[in-house]
Structures are given as structure tokens and as C-alpha cells.
């Protein structure tokens, strides 16, 4: 009976509170976009999804920015694939913390992505071949510029909020710096004002796994009909370790052996090995290696204080938005201290800011998970926000 109830309530939460069946849309931009690097993309597409209804004065829009491996499918599911639930479906839906009865929510696939928006695996109209290595290195600032054009297309002059976790949080913060008057609230979750040397080191190892895979072919593997699966798998395995916490791994896998005894060989023996390989294989089967490289580079480059001699206070002087900054206790990749430096810079600039350090065992990945207190904080903030236009 209890089991049946759990199944029923799970189903209920998927179907009834979900935004339901969604479909992706494609926006085409024919105006060239100049990247921070100086490179120019003559035209590009952005694939996006929307949930909820844009109100009459277009003041209830929330932009959700994705992290390294994310995309535009943020909430709901597809009619022809009901098991393909959006990556932040726990957060966004009817009656959920980001309530689609109140807000009009936009999720997009970033430029350089591999889920439909123009990226390295897209055809370059100038050559008729896939961009591959010739796709420009994209920065958080470039993404925000491209997202602003999507906002223009949708007639949104100012977002009620721009939100995101990790690399998504960096974009949310950048919005407040590049377009201070176009965002009222920034929700920056499990993020950092810049990566630490250790973080860049992790990214570099991941990139090296891909770059040194013989199937990578300098980024032009498409022409060779191969995929640098080994490199991509290793990159993902490494990344995955850093997104979890020691405690979470100990809880979930411990030192359990798949066969119950030692094999004295190099087969997959420990459950954690099996899990990591599964995650690596799954990822390598659908993710583009060039996109992975671009995303990690965007992470490494993000550093708004760089133009201000490392002074983050000066970097945030341009911001006009109110901020909610959240971190997770066991997140060692984007630690609470990193969030505190964001908060301090905002305090020094007299911005409205609230900060909570959420107790969670799940490391960096916590921001994607169901967590009662985390979701209560989000709900309280967004309900408060909704009163601004109701």
C-alpha cells in the first residue's frame, strides 16, 4: 500500500505539477554577433522552450541559464518521449518554487551547444561543412549578448529574473553587469565570481582527455566519421567526481564490490567504478566533444573582476538588480566561500542581497536536486518577487 502510494505520488508530481507537454522552438538570428575574442558569427540559431504565459506588460519573464551539460529542455516532457523530463523539473512547474502559473519561464540552449543551437557540430553555411574546430571560443559575456537578442525577439525589455546554477549562475550574474537595466533579480546558485586554479586544473585535465583522443582529429572528427568517445567519457567521469561529495559517494557506493569479492584484475570491481563508467558512456553517447571544450573554457574565462584589477567590488558596481545567492555546504567545486565573496561584493555596492548556505550532502550537484529547505528559500524569494507585478 505504502509502495503504491509512493508510486502514485511520484506520478502525481510528474504529471500534475509539471508544465506538461512542451516543445522546443527555434529562433534564427541573421545579424552577425561579435564575440569577445573578436571572432564574428554571421548568423546563428538558438533553440529554446517556454513555460507559463507572458503577461500583458511582459514583466513576468524568467530566463533560466544552463550549466556545462545543460540545454533548453528545463521542465516538462515531450509528447513523443514522456520519460525525457526537463533537467530542472523539480524547480519549475505549476505550484513549484518557480511557479509557471505566475512566471513565464524561458530555457535555451546556449550558443556553442549541441542540442540544436548553433555550435561546433552545426553546418557552417560558408563552407557547407560542420564548424568543428573553427567554431569561435565563446564566453559568458557572448552568451548573455546572444540571450539578450532572444529577449528582444520575445519583446522582453526586462526580465523579472535571470537564474542559474554553476556556469548558469555566472550568466545570471553577467546579465546584471552587461544589461543592468534589463534584469530585476539575479538568482545565482552554487556559483563563483571566477574559477580557482584547482577548478581550472580539473577542466584542463578534462580537456586534455578529449584533445589527446586519437579520434578527436583536432576538433574535426565529424569529417572522419568518428567520435572521441574515450576522451569525452574520461572528461565526464572526472567532472562527475567533482560534482559529488566524498560523503555522498560513501553513502551511495561505499566500498561495495559488484561481485562481492576481489578479482585481482583491472575489471570493473567497485560499484563506484561501475557508476562512473555508466555516467561516462551515457554522456559520451550524446554530447559533443567540441561543445564540452567550449563550455569548460567559458567557465575558465569568466572573471568579471579581471577588467578591474581583480577588484570584484568594482566589477559589481554596474549591477542594479536584487540578488539571491545560494551555496551548498558540501559543494567543494563551487564552495560556499566563493558565494560569500559574491555576497560581500554586493554588500559593498549596497545591493539588495540575501544569502543562504544550504545544508546538503550532495556536493555541487545539490542545486539540481529536490531539497525541501532549498526549495522553500527559492519559493519564498520568487513569491515575494511575484508580488512586484501582481
Amino acid at each position: 500500500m505504502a509502495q503504491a502510494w509512493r508510486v502514485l505520488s511520484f506520478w502525481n508530481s510528474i504529471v500534475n505539477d509539471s508544465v506538461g507537454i512542451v516543445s522546443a522552438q527555434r529562433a534564427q538570428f541573421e545579424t552577425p554577433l561579435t564575440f569577445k575574442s573578436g571572432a564574428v558569427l554571421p548568423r546563428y540559431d538558438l533553440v529554446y522552450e517556454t513555460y507559463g504565459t507572458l503577461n500583458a506588460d511582459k514583466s513576468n519573464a524568467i530566463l533560466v541559464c544552463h550549466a556545462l551539460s545543460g540545454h533548453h529542455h528545463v521542465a516538462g516532457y515531450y509528447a513523443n518521449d514522456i520519460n525525457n523530463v526537463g533537467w530542472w523539473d523539480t524547480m519549475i512547474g505549476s505550484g513549484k518554487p518557480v511557479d509557471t502559473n505566475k512566471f513565464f519561464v524561458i530555457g535555451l540552449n546556449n550558443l556553442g551547444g549541441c542540442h540544436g543551437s548553433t555550435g561546433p557540430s552545426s553546418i557552417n553555411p560558408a563552407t557547407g561543412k560542420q564548424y568543428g574546430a573553427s567554431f569561435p571560443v565563446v564566453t559568458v559575456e557572448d552568451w548573455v549578448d546572444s540571450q539578450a537578442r532572444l529577449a528582444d525577439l520575445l519583446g522582453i525589455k526586462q526580465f523579472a529574473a535571470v537564474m542559474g546554477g554553476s556556469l548558469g549562475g555566472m550568466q545570471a550574474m553577467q546579465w546584471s553587469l552587461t544589461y543592468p537595466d534589463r534584469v530585476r533579480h539575479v538568482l545565482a546558485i552554487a556559483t563563483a565570481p571566477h574559477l580557482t586554479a584547482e577548478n581550472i586544473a580539473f577542466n584542463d585535465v578534462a580537456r586534455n582527455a578529449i584533445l589527446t583522443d586519437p579520434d578527436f582529429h583536432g576538433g574535426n572528427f565529424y569529417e572522419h566519421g568518428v567520435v572521441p568517445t574515450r576522451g569525452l567519457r574520461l572528461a565526464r567521469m572526472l567532472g562527475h567526481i567533482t560534482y559529488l561529495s566524498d560523503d555522498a559517494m560513501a553513502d551511495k557506493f561505499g566500498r561495495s564490490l559488484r561481485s562481492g569479492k576481489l578479482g585481482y584484475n583491472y575489471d570493473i570491481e567497485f560499484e563506484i567504478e561501475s557508476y562512473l563508467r555508466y555516467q561516462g558512456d551515457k554522456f559520451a553517447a550524446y554530447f559533443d566533444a567540441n561543445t564540452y571544450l567550449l563550455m569548460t573554457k567559458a567557465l575558465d574565462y569568466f572573471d568579471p573582476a579581471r577588467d578591474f584589477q581583480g577588484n570584484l567590488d568594482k566589477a559589481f558596481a554596474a549591477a542594479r538588480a536584487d540578488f539571491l545567492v545560494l551555496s551548498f555546504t558540501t559543494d567543494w567545486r563551487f564552495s560556499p566561500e566563493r558565494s560569500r565573496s559574491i555576497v560581500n561584493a554586493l554588500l559593498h555596492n549596497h545591493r539588495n542581497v540575501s544569502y543562504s548556505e544550504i545544508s546538503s550532502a550532495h556536493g555541487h550537484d545539490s542545486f539540481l536536486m529536490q531539497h525541501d529547505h532549498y526549495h522553500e528559500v527559492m519559493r519564498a524569494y520568487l513569491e515575494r518577487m511575484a508580488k512586484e507585478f501582481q
Partner: protein
Amino acid sequence: MSAHDPVELAAARPDFAAIAAWIPQGASVLDLGCGDGSLLRYLKDTRKVRGYGVEISDANIVACISNGVNVIQSNLESGLSGFESSAFDFVLLSQTLQATRHTEPLVQEMLRVGNEAIVSFPNFGYWKARLNVLQGNMPVSDELPYQWYDTPNVHLCTLHDFEDFCKSHLVHILDRRVMTGDSEIRMLPNLLGSVAVYRFKRST
């Protein structure tokens, strides 16, 4: 009437009105141990302050956000290192002093971060408290609602104690209000007042 009606709040917490009376319009305020944000909300509504609260409890973080006040989740006991010197006009500690473990360094931190500090605390010298002790029991009252075994209060003091502390720690008291319920006590305050509110700054 709203749960955060300023009139209603002032009636429920007379120390709020006393604190607000010292705070000029538009001042910047840091409220330590801000609870559900009621005081900050009150000061925002009545004094248009630019304020931030510091709170440790998860439930209070949610309450503050719902209340529309800025709140930073942090442990007061580990200091105010995230805040710059003289960053605020006022640093407040309302009904929390007696529950802090590192009271001495905290008062110094308040005076580093704020140009002035305001604290309110239950007066352990209040006659009813004295009578309780004389009768052989720890006092339990509206101001001290805990039993000895579940109280968070570890540093209770009287008005005299606090003023001695200020003298020995180079703290200059600017103003004091002593109350019992919502009436101000001017005569024999250490005996007749149940709550004290002090405004002070560093001695120069």
C-alpha cells in the same frame, strides 16, 4: 490587519519603537540575529533604512525572505569578518546579547562594522527576577521564557553589569532606554525595568 503592520509590531515589541526612535531616515543597518526579520521590516517601513539581517536558522532565512528583508545566513559566533569596517551606520543586536557565547569579541566586532551599535536585552536585575532567585528559583517570565535546562541564554546581565562592561571595554554609552512592558522606566531602572536598550559607540 497585516501580520507586519508597524503599529501592531511596535505594540508587541516595545523595544522596536525604542530602537527606531534612535535611527534616522535612510540609515544603513545591520541586524545581528535578526530572527524572522520583523525588526528590519519595521525599520524599513518606518525609517526607510537600507538593512541587512544576519541569521543562522534555516526557518528564519525563509521567514526573512518572505518578509522582504535582506538576510545573510551566517554564524554570529564566528565573527563579522565578511563585513567591512564602518560599513553600517548602526549594528543592532536585539534580545540576542545574552544568548551569545563570545559576547566580548562580538561587541567589539559590532563597533568595528558599525559607527554606532544598539543592543537590547532582558534585565536580570529586574525585581521579579531578583525575587525568583531570592525564593530559590531561576526566573521564568515573558522576557526570560525558558527553563534553566533549555535556555539559550548563557550571558545574562543586569544594567549595572552591562554599564561596567562598557566602562572597562572603552565603550561609550550614548543613550539608554529602560522599559517594563510598553512603559518607560526612569526611576530605579535596574530594579524596575525588565528590558534595557542601549545605544553606544567606541570611546575616542
